[in-house]
């Protein structure tokens, strides 16, 4: 068996957290999204039609939206309050969770 140089393994451990933060961890996001479930549902099927479905939405669109609610560039009385308490990692994780669920699709050109 070929031995993998320890330096490469060490490098992977150094890089892994950075990748995990930018990519978002869906499992973590599932736990962190509990407060979202009341309106948007656990899998992103919202409980009331005035709230958007999130399941299957693009991850980067979800995170961009949450960053926007957090910094106030997008205004919504409910969402500004919730997003204010989220860290970058929270936003990436929650976005990864809902993006990994099913629901929304691209529309057809017909």
């Amino acid at each position, binding site marked *: 068996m070929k031995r993998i140089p320890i330096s490469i393994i060490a490098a992977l451990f150094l890089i892994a957290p950075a990748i995990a933060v930018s990519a978002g961890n869906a499992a973590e996001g599932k736990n962190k999204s509990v407060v979202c479930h009341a309106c948007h549902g656990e899998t992103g099927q919202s409980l009331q039609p*005035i709230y958007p479905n999130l399941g299957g939405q*693009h991850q980067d669109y979800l995170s961009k939206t949450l960053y926007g609610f957090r910094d106030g560039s997008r205004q919504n009385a409910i969402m500004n309050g919730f997003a204010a308490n989220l860290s970058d990692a929270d936003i990436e994780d929650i976005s990864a969770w809902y993006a990994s669920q099913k629901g929304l699709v*691209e*529309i057809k050109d017909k």
Partner: protein
Amino acid sequence: MRIRKALFILLLCLLSVNAFAAGDYEAGKIKAYTCTGCHGIAGYKNTYPMYHVPRIGGQNAEYLVIALKGFKSGERNHSTMNLQAEALSEQDIQDIAVYLAAQTDTSGD
């Protein structure tokens, strides 16, 4: 008699609101053609900043109406969407929302 007349007018108002609120799927299909230019292309991205254009097929109609009205009024900011929504009538918005909400699968027919 006066009260009756008032009630009758009120009823007419309610009816017109209902008629207004009902979106038409077939009309929406035609009116939503422009939307496919961005929202119908898998993986299509917004630039500056760069992010995927949101998936809107299967979104709740009521939410889509709120979103489009937000873009129309300027409450929500996105240059392309503000321009697109500006041109839409109340009825257009209702029709488009009903059509988009009914989209569930991009693979079939």
